[in-house]
Structure formats: C-alpha cells, structure tokens
C-alpha cells in the first residue's frame, strides 16, 4: 500500500514537472538547461562541493525497466540520496527533455515528437533514481547487521592488532571522496580466513580478516574496500529492491497481453519468466561491474601512481574464483527440448551472480585506461 502511495506521489510530481516544462520549453533559449543547473547548484560536471549543495544526477538515458544500470562506467561516485536531489535531477532532466522535444519538433517536418511524451520519459527517469529515504536505508542496514554474528571485536587481542590497519585504509579512501554524502561508514572485520568483503545498506562495510592479517593481501584489500564503498555510495541494495517493486508493478499491461498469448503458445509464460529473471540477474551483474568501475576511479585518486593502481587491480583479478554454475551460455535446443532446457535453466541458475572473470577484466581495463587518460589530461 505504501509503495502505491509512494509511486502515485512520484508520478504526480513528475507529471506536474513535465507539464510545466512542456509549457515552458518553447519560451526558453538553448542556454536554459545550463542556467537552470547553475541555479540549482548542480555538480554533475565537477566533483567536490559541500554537503549542503544539491547533488544532481545528469540523466541522459532512460529505460522501460527500473532494473537496468545505465551508467556502468561510474561517471559519478555518489548517487543522489536526498529527495531534493532527486527532484532537482528530474527538473533538469525534464527541462533537457523539453528542449530536446522542441528541437525534434523543429527538425521533424510532421512534428512526430509529441509534447505528451515528456512526462512519460520523466517518469522513466524517476525510476532510475533511488527514492528510499536515507533513514530507512540505514535502518535496513542495521537490521542486516544484527544478523551478522561473525565480526571481530575491536577490543579483543586480534581486534586491537588488525582494526588500525583497515581503519587507516578506509580513512584514506574516504578522504578522497570529494562528492558530498551523508553516509557514516562503519567498518567490521569478519572472522574469516577467506579474502572476501561485503557491503550492506547505510554504510556497513565488512572485510575478511584473511585480507588484513597477511600484508601480501593488502593490495587486494584496497580494491575490495573501494568496491564495497562504491556499493554503498551507489545505493545498490536499495535500488535493486526498488527496481523489483517497480518492474513487477508496471508490467500489468504486459501481463494481460501475455495471458492472451498463452492460449496459442504455452511456452510464452516460460519465456516471460526467463526474460524477467535474466533482466534481474543482468542488473545484479551490472551493479557489480559498476562497483568495480567506481573502485578503479576511487583508487585512481587514492593510490600514488598508475603502477600502484595496476598492482591493486591485478591482485584482485588473480584471486578471482573459478567460474560458477550459470556463467556458461546455455546450449541451443529446439521444440520441447528447448522448453525443458529453459525451465531447467530458470530453476538451476542462480538469480544473483557475479560477472564472469572475463567481463570483470575487460571492464576494469576500460576504466583503468580512462582513469589514466583523465590523469594525463589533468597534467
């Protein structure tokens, strides 16, 4: 029920914004978008600023689905986290859309671009923003944290030995997050011999003791911590939750069409379920890749040079696990065999999985080169 109220409120606001800008678009000059962003104090072009300023997300793509990552290369380390930020981002988007529509109307002889498309696009843009209030996100994180019973006590003998190392690592990294945010990060060492790390909503970070007690693992620890910080600052867990709600609710019309189609082809329902599952899995994978990208950008600020950055990335890549079930593409089949294979794939393959090592390698290399290019340009 609360979701419905929330969706209606958002839809209403974006509708009003859309109408306002559709009406105002023709009167505005091309410099409107820039001046509006300046008025709102947006920082999408420049990092830094204080916590009071508005954090505007420059939305330049939208999708029919909420569960998509449209900026996998991490153009910004911190996602908007205040309602005012979201509304400002939508305002800028609506203004830009209004201007784009005007351009299309002028350039297209028959005026195929209709003004009423603006609110719909703005609504889709709203789906890409995270509407869960920060206080709720923190409470969700606290709830998950209470289930964690494997943390190393800071006051224990081993805690006193290891916490200073990771605390210093975290402080160094956070000192390089120049964008404003309100997260209070809480770092815990997990009593595990393995070399993994975890992030939970609201700023809860966890790192295995296996990454801390062995100095040779510190290169990977840097990457791990940067990756987990990115999950929090990108608000991945709550965005995923929100996307599930939005996508399941907005597919009502599709569902009616689907029910009609099933009479002719019973396999349609299986295809529909598989498509939904694949989309969710892809979203999860892309969020992981986005966190990898953000980690490289953050480490690019933290580590002294390109070699140190490369060493940290290589330490992570070298330690990646072997492929997990579901990573290999399914073999093609036809007829009843295909239907059976599809059902088996839906049941057997994990819904949440990590990118393949190859995907991660290619993505890291792209972002690494981009970071180096930016550093060279800055010099």
């Amino acid at each position: 029920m609360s979701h419905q109220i929330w969706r209606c409120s958002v839809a209403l606001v974006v509708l009003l914004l859309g109408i306002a800008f559709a009406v105002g678009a023709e009167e505005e000059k091309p410099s409107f978008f820039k001046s509006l962003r300046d008025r709102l104090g947006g920082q999408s072009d420049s990092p830094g600023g204080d916590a009071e300023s508005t954090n505007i997300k420059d939305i330049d793509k939208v999708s029919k689905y909420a569960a998509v990552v449209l900026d996998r290369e991490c153009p910004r380390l911190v996602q908007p986290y205040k309602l005012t930020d979201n509304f400002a981002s939508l305002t800028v988007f609506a203004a830009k859309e209004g201007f784009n529509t005007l351009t299309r109307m002028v350039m297209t002889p028959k005026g195929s671009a209709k003004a009423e498309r603006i609110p719909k696009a703005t609504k889709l843009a709203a789906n890409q923003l995270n509407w869960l209030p920060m206080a709720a996100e923190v409470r969700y994180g606290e709830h998950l944290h209470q289930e964690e019973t494997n943390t190393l006590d800071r006051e224990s003998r081993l805690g006193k030995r290891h916490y200073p190392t990771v605390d210093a690592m975290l402080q160094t990294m956070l000192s390089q997050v120049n964008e404003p945010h309100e997260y209070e990060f809480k770092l815990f060492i997990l009593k595990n011999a393995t070399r993994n790390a975890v992030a939970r909503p609201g700023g809860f970070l966890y790192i295995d003791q296996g990454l801390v007690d062995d100095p040779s693992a510190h290169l990977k620890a840097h990457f791990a911590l940067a990756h987990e910080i990115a999950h929090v600052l990108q608000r991945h867990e709550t965005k995923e939750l929100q996307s599930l709600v939005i996508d399941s609710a907005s597919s009502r019309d599709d569902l009616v069409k689907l029910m009609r189609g099933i009479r002719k082809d019973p396999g349609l329902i299986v295809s529909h379920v598989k498509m939904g599952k694949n989309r969710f899995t892809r979203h999860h994978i892309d969020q992981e890749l986005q966190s990898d990208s953000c980690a490289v950008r953050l480490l690019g600020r933290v580590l002294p040079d390109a070699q140190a950055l490369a060493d940290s990335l290589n330490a992570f890549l070298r330690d990646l696990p072997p492929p997990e079930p579901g990573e290999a593409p399914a073999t093609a089949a036809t007829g009843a065999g295909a239907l059976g294979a599809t059902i088996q794939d839906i049941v057997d393959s994990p819904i949440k999985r990590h990118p393949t090592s190859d995907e991660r390698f290619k993505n890291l290399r792209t972002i690494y080169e981009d970071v180096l290019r930016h550093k060279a340009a800055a010099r």
Partner: protein
Amino acid sequence: MKRAAIAVLLFLVLSEAEANECVGLQKIRESLMAANKPRVAKLAEDTPEKVPCGSIGPVLSRLARRETTGGRRLERDRPVSAARVQAEMDAAHRDPEVRDLLEEVARDTPDANVRLFYEAAILDDGGYYAARDAKIDQLRKQLE
C-alpha cells in the same frame, strides 16, 4: 550478623555466576531453542571457564546457520583449501596458549560433540578460522 554474612556471601556467589555468563549467549541459546535446535543449544551448557567466552556465541550461531547473511559480496564465497586448514591446525598446535587449551579440553571433555564445540571456540579466539570452520563442519555432520 550471621544473616548479613550469608546475604553478602550469596550476593558474591550470584555476582560471580552472572560474570561467568557470556554476554548475549542466553539470547542465542533461546533463539536456537525457538528454532528447534535444542542439540546445538545444549552444547553451550555448563561451558568451562577455559573456553573463551566471546567465541561461544559466534560458534553456536555459525553452527546453527548455513546460509550466508545478506549484502553485496566482492566475489562468490568459496571454501578454503584442505591444505590451508591443515596449515592452520599445525600453527594452532605451535601456539602455546592455544595448544594448552586444546589439550585441556581433549583431556577433560569425554563427549565428542561437546569437545569439537570447545575446540572450535578455542580456534576462533586464536584467529584460526579455517581450522575452526573445519571443526564446525565436522560437528554439524555428527549432529545430523
């Protein structure tokens, strides 16, 4: 006077008993009972002082729960190698403090399940987590 002395004595005994009760352990045991895992909860009954208090609750929880807790992991969890487990066991037996405790519980604990539980708690406190997890896995199989 005699009554006052008895009251003071009783207070001291009760205070000592409370001090020996590990923080949070009662809650964990209650939740295990509620989850219909009395055999696991029973392992922590009358735990001797030599077993590190801070490790009893976490080992009990780990023993009772197989699934991982929520959150975004850097990579998929994977088991540690048998070689790593053995290396940690060897290191634990070279660590005088841990070795003495392991030898004591081996000598003083006739019940094999309870002994495994104590050993896991001692290894947890010493930071030998791969060895601890091997003991927990072994105990879990024995309890099934």
